[in-house]
């Protein structure tokens, strides 16, 4: 009485039933179907759609508008700032913003390689199903359950230049050992270190002279390394669980076939299993990539904000400082728009290929 299959006497699968339906049964089910397709599903979806349209797309539009406006004090002023887009021009002239872009790209690159590499390694180790497999799988996944603030506070203490790991260098005699070989004792400033590794300014300057006068060093800020370790520690478990799920989909027959063909155990992994994991790598990189582009809380907890010489500054902190501390709503909105574009650069190609596959 409730569904068309129950009413029709044959036992074919539902969609086949729909195609080969007898004339006398046709009318009512199609009307029902039409009702559910054309009216009911949009009706059920409409509250959610309305909310999404308002709270996502309308607000994105408002943010873009604010970024072009004169709203630079507590007083709301939505008139368009002339010349158009001058706030963006100003922002891209700011030393701090240059440092932000450098940091967010370096951080994303390092953090992705760290999490993916260790996630894959752990997944492959667990794939061997050694003793304590379930325990370790959970242990590696636990950090993912914490919030970034908790991780940030804990790692801030670990990387405190006066206490934390630096104490270990002394107590375990590592510094004595280094001094014995004539080196200076190891006392890294970690999150407070202002040096930039592999500075490319002079090299890039020979190719493109304006870069020589750039007020920031293009390279890897040392202070970001503790942040990468903390973020990697938290999200490696996530990458690992993605890889474990991916490994489960690699058919056992493939491995068997490779072994029969004389592949060594290493070759089974490098030539058969890991290439099969490429789609997993892509999805994990995209999920982690947009986390890292939007990062705010971890860095805020670890370094308290921009850090000396903006070594740990990221667009998220820039937006917070300029919107809520400096009340320059237009500048904060402009930075948010650029953050959105950065995330879009990752997400849109992914969605595009996914939709095309379907």
């Amino acid at each position, binding site marked *: 009485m409730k569904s068309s299959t129950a009413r029709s006497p044959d036992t074919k699968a539902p969609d086949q039933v729909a195609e080969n339906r007898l004339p006398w049964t046709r009318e009512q089910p199609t009307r029902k179907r039409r009702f559910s397709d054309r009216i009911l599903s949009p009706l059920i979806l409409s509250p959610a759609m309305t909310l999404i349209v308002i709270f996502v797309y309308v607000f994105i539009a408002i943010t873009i508008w604010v970024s072009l406006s004169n709203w630079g004090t507590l007083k709301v002023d939505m008139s368009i700032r002339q010349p158009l887009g001058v706030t963006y021009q100003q922002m891209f002239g700011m030393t701090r913003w240059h440092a932000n872009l450098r940091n967010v790209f370096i951080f994303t690159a390092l953090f992705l390689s760290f999490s993916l590499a260790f996630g894959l390694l752990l997944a492959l180790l667990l794939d061997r199903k050694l003793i304590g497999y379930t325990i370790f799988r959970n242990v590696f996944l636990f950090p993912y359950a914490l919030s970034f603030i908790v991780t940030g506070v804990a790692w801030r203490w670990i990387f405190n*230049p006066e206490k934390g790991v630096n104490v270990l260098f002394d107590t375990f005699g590592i510094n004595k050992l280094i001094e014995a070989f004539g080196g200076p004792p190891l006392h890294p400033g970690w999150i407070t270190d202002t040096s930039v590794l592999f500075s490319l300014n002079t090299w890039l300057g020979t190719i493109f002279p304006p870069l020589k006068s750039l007020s920031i060093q293009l390279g890897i800020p040392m202070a970001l390394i503790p942040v990468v370790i903390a973020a990697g520690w938290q999200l490696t478990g996530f990458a690992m669980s993605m890889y474990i799920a991916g490994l489960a989909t690699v058919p056992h027959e493939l491995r068997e076939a490779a072994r029969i063909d004389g592949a060594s155990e290493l070759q089974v992994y490098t030539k058969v299993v890991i290439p099969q994991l490429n789609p997993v790598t892509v999805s994990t990189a995209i999920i982690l990539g947009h986390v890292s582009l939007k990062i705010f809380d971890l860095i805020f907890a670890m370094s308290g904000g921009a850090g*000396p010489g903006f070594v740990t500054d990221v667009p998220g902190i820039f937006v917070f400082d300029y919107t809520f501390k400096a009340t320059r709503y237009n500048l904060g909105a402009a930075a948010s728009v650029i953050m959105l574009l950065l995330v879009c650069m990752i997400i849109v190609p992914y969605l595009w290929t996914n939709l095309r596959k379907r």
Partner: protein
Amino acid sequence: MKINTCLPLTKLATALALLLPFAAFADSAKKLEVFSWWTSGGEAAALDALFKVYKERTPGVEIVNATVAGGGGSAARPVLQTRLAGGNPPDTWQAHPGWELLGQYVEPGYCEPLNDLYQSENWGKVLPEQLVKLLTKDGKQWCVLAGVHRGNDLWYNKKVLEKAGIKIGDTISIDEFLADCAKLKAAGVTPLAVGDSGIWATAQLFENTLLGTVGPTGWQDLFSGKMAFDDPKVKQAAQSYAKLLEYQNSDHSALTWDQAIKAVEEGRCAFSSMGDWAHGEFTKANLKDDVDFGWVSHPGTKGGFIVVADGFTLAKNAPHKAETVSWLKSIGSKESQEEFNPLKGSIPIRTDVDKSKFGPYHQWSMKSFASDALLPSCVHGEAAPAAFQQALNDAITQFVVDKNVDAFCSALVQAAKESNITK
């Protein structure tokens, strides 16, 4: 059929949604909502003292203490801004005089003027004129101050200096200070303690050094646009500041300002340049004024008093206006001023209070308050718009690393232009 079973639930939800807004309007008792970011030990106790006096004067009013924790109001301000912009202001909120009050809150029309209150209470007679000027716009006063901190103090550990054979008199010049620092460094003591994990702490050091170089008139000229931020004097101040940074503790960016004061207390460092909220840290450690620690105006700033004051406003369309006015009246009373300030570690704004309630440091500070030029602080948002304050913090963040005086000054010039300090 499935839909039918859902209907009662939907009805219930709709009914609830319609009823909820009315629940919020149910109370109409006498109330007063006070918004501040005074949550730490001494600050909370001081706020409680204000409440106590108010309750004695105006019984039967329930006080809603809307505090948001977070140093210097960093977390509270976003909440306040949202409430103001959303048309749901607290009755009264904490504000610094000067630009923050007049530019940020009064100019967009979030406050009510208080000139009637100032007249009826005769505050014009007991408050220093220079101070009242900081909270006056269009001939009207806009907030009532609870107390005043002095920003340009140099604190030192007496025992450490004695050991190094250094004596500090009534005043000290920047060159003398640099010479002392060199002497201490040679003796193996870290001369200067800075805790700039919150960048404002080192910005405060620069601000004090800037005042020490340009002087009180120069300070007024800078923030009224008569003197440019790339003036040779400002550059000289930046150079002195760069020299001072050579003498700071190596772990400065991992510490907060109070941890830096602790380094002075424990004798790991000799000096720290900080406002007199640092005094509370010394007393908390059971150290005695003039015995264990000493103070002097930051080098070159004798005769100037950087005001870091906290006041309360009257919101436009305040939900409980009568209660708020009596609250502000209570804050300005002699009684409140005497109760609040010893706990907060600040000094009263009134000149007619009982000085014996205060210790040696605060008596010294009151003397300076009565005779020196009272200047608004830039680091605490009084001298210039918040956007300039942020630009200064950013410029300092960069300067601490690259010590590039020209880039630093041109960043400030640019920021001054954008914030309409200079045309």
